[in-house]
């Protein structure tokens, strides 16, 4: 590799890490603020402007906290768990294109790459749940695995519709194909399926079963404290970021905006709005039950996704790839 490529890679990786940390900090703050206001409270208020420094302070607290390992835990796996969660979450960011030409690697099959890494997460959560030697984490970890695996299939099938029409797995190409009509208007069914499945992938209410607070205390992360908890949290927010990005990129036109010049700002705005709506759902909805959850995936979303693909394929054949 040439020196320039090395430099580019390192700068890109650092930038992505900064992005992830920034999104997590902002996301937690915004979530606390937004849900606080939904509940007619004010949320954090005291450190910095409207509590903006609360999260850096929390991070310092997390780093300074004692790192406890339960006696009965499988200590090797317990230490390894957060790494297993953070690596896929971080690696998936590499292929995201944030503006035309702005990506660490603009991969030919970027979408596949992102999904591949996201698929690793249930493994990490199950691992964490198992290693803690706590029954609540165990149930949480297994729920996470069951949920993420069953929602991945409709999600991928819904994304396939987009890939079919855009005739590419490259994220830049997919977004550029939406300069006219966004795919949300062309494939509304696909959009709904993808969003619902993505919401489940993000472990967000009403699909937050793996960390169901009222049932499982804190689900698979019950035993973690300090920075290990921070890493798991980071992984969660990375999924939130990637999920919102994918919805925005695949269906909402990415950086395109009708009648306005394309800019990364639109993408950022869409991501923030999507993240906010997940928080809105979280503040309003109760949680589904575990059997309804899996049934919904296999009995409704999966058939609907198959119908969607057939519909999209038929339309694409009929109208031709240029139009549809």
């Amino acid at each position, binding site marked *: 590799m040439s020196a320039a490529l090395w430099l580019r890679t390192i700068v890109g990786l650092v930038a992505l890490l900064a992005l992830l940390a920034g999104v997590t900090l902002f996301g937690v703050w915004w979530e606390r603020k937004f849900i606080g*206001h939904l509940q007619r409270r004010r949320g954090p208020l005291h450190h910095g402007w409207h509590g903006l420094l609360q999260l850096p302070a929390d991070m310092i607290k997390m780093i300074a906290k004692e790192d406890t390992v339960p006696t009965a835990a499988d200590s090797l796996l317990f230490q390894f768990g957060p790494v297993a969660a953070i690596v896929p979450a971080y690696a998936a960011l590499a292929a995201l294109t944030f503006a035309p030409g702005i990506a660490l690697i603009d991969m030919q099959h970027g979408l596949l790459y992102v999904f591949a890494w996201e698929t690793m997460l249930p493994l990490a959560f199950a691992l964490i749940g198992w290693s803690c030697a706590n029954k609540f984490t165990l149930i949480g970890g297994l729920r996470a695995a069951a949920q993420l695996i069953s929602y991945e299939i409709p999600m991928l099938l819904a994304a396939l519709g987009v890939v079919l029409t855009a005739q590419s797995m490259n994220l830049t190409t997919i977004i550029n194909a939406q300069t006219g009509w966004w795919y949300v208007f062309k494939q509304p069914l696909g959009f709904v399926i993808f969003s619902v499945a993505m919401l489940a992938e993000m472990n967000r209410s009403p699909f937050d079963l793996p960390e169901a607070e009222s049932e499982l205390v804190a689900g698979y992360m019950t035993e973690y404290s300090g920075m290990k908890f921070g890493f798991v949290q980071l992984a969660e927010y990375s999924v939130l970021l990637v999920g919102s990005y994918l919805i925005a990129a695949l269906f909402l036109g990415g950086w395109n905006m009708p009648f306005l010049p394309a800019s990364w700002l639109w993408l950022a705005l869409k991501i923030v709005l999507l993240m906010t709506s997940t928080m809105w759902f979280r503040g309003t909805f109760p949680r589904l039950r575990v059997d309804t959850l899996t049934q919904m995936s296999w009995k409704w979303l999966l058939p609907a996704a198959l119908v969607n693909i057939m519909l999209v394929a038929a339309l694409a054949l009929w109208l031709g790839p240029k139009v549809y």
Partner: protein
Amino acid sequence: MFGSGLAKGLGITMRRLLAGPVTELYPYDHKVLTPASRTFLAMYVNEEGGPACKACNTCIVGCPDHVLRLEKDPDDNRKPLEFVVNSGRCTFCGLCVENCPYDALHFTPDYERATYDRGTLIYHLVHEGAHTGEGDEPK
């Protein structure tokens, strides 16, 4: 239709968000308690400026938690020498104020006496520097 209830719920929460917060910012905004509220005990003064208590012991007998202690003046059976309130034990039930036949006791509107030291919660009501409250006029 499935989903209409969900949408309605989202509408409700958003409307509440737009209506603005209702919480009080406690250390900045002080809530004024109602006159009826039961907080810390204080004693009225009588016409001569002394404690209004006549050392009759009714409040002490009536207190369920043994909070109050009274020492009578050896020279004057109707005068308290010391009247001690161990507020750390008090349940603020109000029976003492209710029971006093001379209406000597009352509650102050002050509720901020949190402390790290239990000893500071023991108040002497008839001493010099006794804790009185506002409105210490004889009844």
